[in-house]
């Protein structure tokens, strides 16, 4: 992708709430309508941005009126929120969780740490650009974005789902070698975290 500085970056980072809709067929329209009206968010706070998730989902800035509620397991979730910085340790677990979710799945990235490293730009243990490792649907700017910003991000994500443009899971499946190469460059040959019963009980575990 060619980058000519600021303009190109703003276009890829901003969700546009004023564009016109486009859908392929009526069955697709119906499916996307149902998908955007009911969003299950995995209850997994990956970074310090998770502090803004409880106010968004509870009484003060009620996100349930948009149809958004929490899900307990990755198998039941549609959206995973990467809220903040990803250290290497967290990135391993996020990748495994993301691959456990069933299609169609969306990824919402909060904060400036996912865009370009944010406050931890010179840290030896965090990644700087989340797009190299996992496909992102919508960025929400801020450090941390306030609940109003998160709600606006959800509304923009709903609009994109309704138009059929939020297809990051397809991008992950088609370009899997690219993502895997980047993941291995940072995490080593074995990207999956090593927890099984033997490791936990006998090799010392935690």
């Amino acid at each position: 992708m060619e980058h000519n500085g600021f303009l190109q970056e703003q276009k890829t980072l901003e969700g546009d709430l004023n564009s016109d809709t486009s859908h392929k067929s009526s069955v697709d329209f119906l499916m996307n309508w149902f998908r955007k009206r009911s969003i299950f968010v995995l209850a997994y706070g990956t970074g310090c941005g998770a502090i803004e998730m409880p106010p968004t989902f509870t009484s003060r800035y009620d996100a349930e009126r948009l149809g958004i509620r929490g899900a307990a397991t990755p198998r039941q979730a549609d959206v995973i929120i990467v809220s903040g910085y990803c250290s290497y340790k967290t990135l391993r677990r996020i990748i495994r969780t993301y691959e456990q979710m069933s299609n169609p799945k969306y990824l919402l990235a909060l904060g400036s740490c996912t865009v370009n490293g944010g406050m931890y730009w010179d840290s030896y243990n965090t990644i700087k650009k989340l797009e190299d490792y996992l496909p992102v649907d919508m960025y929400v700017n801020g450090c941390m974005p306030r609940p109003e910003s998160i709600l606006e991000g959800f509304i923009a994500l709903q609009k994109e789902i309704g138009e059929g443009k939020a297809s990051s899971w397809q991008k992950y499946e088609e370009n899997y070698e690219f993502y895997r190469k980047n993941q291995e460059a940072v995490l080593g040959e074995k990207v999956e975290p090593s927890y099984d019963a033997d490791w936990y009980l006998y090799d010392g575990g935690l």
Partner: protein
Amino acid sequence: MIVIDLFLMLLVAYAVGFLYYGLYRNITARFQRRFGPPVWQSFIDSVKFFFKEESTSHGWMFYLGPIIMMSGAIMTLFFIPFFSSGDSFSGLSAYGNLFLVLYLLVLGPLGNALGVGTAGNPFGVMGVTRGLTRLFAMELPFYIAVIAIMSLSGSADIATIASGQTTFNAFAYPLLFIGALFSFIGMMGQAPFDVVGAPVEVYSGPASEFSGKFLALLMSQSAIFTFAKLVLMVHLFLGGASGFLELLLKTFVLFILVISFGSLYGRFKTPQSVDFLLKVPTTIAVVGLILATWS
């Protein structure tokens, strides 16, 4: 024609069950000083899960689990007549009575246990063992109350019990009603007896490995089963119903009563709930039984 009758019963149970769940979310939201989702939100949730693709497969019993639960829910619904007299919406109640319905009520947790056990997810197994333990304690006060009602009405046919009440059984034999109500709160999955599917504790227990269409089946069967149990309680204790409006009103009042309990109380642990259910409601139901059948 009986087939149209059955189909309409299923449709009504599906629609009203999901409507009640949506109302439940709205009412709980108002308790918590916020506006909730639109009333048809649960329906949209279940339809969305039909459009999800699957990612796992754990063998044929994993597929069979939700199917057993769904068939259990539908069979229970068919054997409970909606109205206390008349032929419309009576389903198959001419061929089975209250004993059969009580047996069919167990098919829910049983199908759950069979399906979840094959997945191998430890949280699922944990949730299922809790569910079966709780079921064993929950059935006792409910069966005592129901059998008392059966012997007092002199019949095991639900329509006869419903139409034979001059005053509602809930007011004529209040202790029996209270004993059965405790179990009913647990059957509806409300606090304080909702330890089975606790999302925060045990990662939603039995539902933790199901994704996509299985989850849609689980949610649909939950809606249908809820409506069937509500209609059963209305016929046993609240005098049945002779029209749609009366049926919807009575089930709604009972539903509101149950979820008000649920949103106010905390959650019992499994041994605590078994302990409580085997002591307090059982004693109340036995005392009610003795008082009612003494003379």
